[in-house]
């Protein structure tokens, strides 16, 4: 026989489930019930789902004034919001524009405003929503066209926190050591996929354009809490997030934490940085 590769991948890391994951699980269990109901309803009624999609194109007559278009999309089990958009584009209107790529909640392209909440299109099951489904571009961002918003500002904020590892003493030819606890501590913060859902949901970020925003602060947290960077660098990092439009702007609205598709406890991270900043300031008094 030619190919008898025993490809055994054990992709799951045995990690303690954090409280957030716990919460998410219980939410899932609740939703399972909701789904059953939705499905039984479905089999009896029509098999299409109506989506109302925000349309805007600065160049095209008739689309210069924003409007909503309605599409009737055949429903299939397991259909996500993104699937419905793809269907509408490929079958009804090829000019329907939205960003998407991975279809598995890892590229962060398709954060949308779905039925009044920031969600990833590819990770939102139609049956979990109320129909008709209303799909809009992310609030608090400039719309380029249809569902595409300008991400430049978000990227600028992300890049303002020196989002790269910096350390002075690296061992020659081998890795730096890091304790499991420390890796566990930064673990959630490293999961960010730059989707900008959090930023869009935060009212402070909406009002104060210079506010770093939850994602960028979380990025800063990811490095500030990484023991490999050392104490001195941590001070430097705290100075960055302490600026006028840094952590102090956060009013613990928790919207960011609610919408983050990667379940990152953003508010908690921001709060921890505030405490760290206060502590480090106290040291010098």
């Amino acid at each position, binding site marked *: 026989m030619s190919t008898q590769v025993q490809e055994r991948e054990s992709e799951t890391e045995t990690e303690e489930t954090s409280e957030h994951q716990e919460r998410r699980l219980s939410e899932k269990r609740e939703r399972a019930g909701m789904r059953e109901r939705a499905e039984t309803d479905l089999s009896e009624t029509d098999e299409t789902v109506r989506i109302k999609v925000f349309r805007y194109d*600065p160049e095209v007559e008739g689309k210069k004034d924003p409007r909503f278009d309605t599409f009737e999309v055949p429903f299939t089990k397991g259909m996500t919001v993104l699937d419905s958009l793809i269907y509408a584009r490929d079958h009804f209107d090829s000019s329907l524009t939205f960003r998407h790529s991975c279809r598995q909640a890892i590229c962060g392209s398709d954060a949308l405003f779905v039925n009044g909440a920031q969600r990833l299109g590819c990770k939102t099951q139609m049956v979990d929503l109320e129909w008709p489904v209303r799909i809009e571009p992310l609030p608090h961002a400039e719309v380029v066209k249809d569902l595409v918003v300008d991400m430049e500002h978000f990227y600028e904020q992300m890049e303002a926190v020196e989002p790269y590892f910096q350390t002075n003493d690296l061992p020659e030819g081998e890795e730096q050591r890091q304790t499991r606890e420390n890796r566990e501590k930064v673990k959630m913060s490293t999961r960010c996929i730059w989707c900008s859902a959090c930023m869009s949901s935060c009212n402070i970020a909406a009002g104060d354009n210079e506010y770093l925003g939850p994602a960028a602060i979380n990025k800063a947290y990811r490095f500030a809490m990484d023991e490999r960077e050392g104490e001195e660098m941590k001070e430097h990092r705290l100075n960055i997030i302490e600026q006028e439009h840094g952590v102090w702007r956060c009013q613990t609205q928790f*919207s960011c934490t609610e919408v983050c598709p990667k379940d990152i406890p953003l508010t908690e991270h921001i709060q921890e940085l505030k*405490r760290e900043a206060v502590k480090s300031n106290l040291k010098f008094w």
Partner: protein
Amino acid sequence: MSQSYDRGLIEDFGRWQEFSAGMWAWIFHKFTGWVLIGYLFTHVAVLSTATVDGATYTQTLQGLESLLLVRFLEVGLLAVAAFHILNGVRLLFVDLGVGIESQDKAFYAALIATAAITVASIPTFLVGAF
């Protein structure tokens, strides 16, 4: 270059139906905070009658207290203060990173407690007003 369509401020608060617990808590806290500082200024103004003489002071206070409206406003003030205090405590816990996962429950608890305190205090406030 394409120009972009900015949906402006309607986005901010036009969506209040969608707000989650943390957002409502933030709004209420803001509102109650403003009421309280507003009250503090008025309060000091009223009390300033004490700088004229004792009689004016007593007269003013009792005069105000005899107004039914003021009695009701006082109940309102208590409600506002109670919420601000309770949610303030919730916020302090959030700041300390304690029980962050239950922040939404804490907000509901604060609301309920505020209502309870307010209702329970009505007799005390209104006594002798009628």
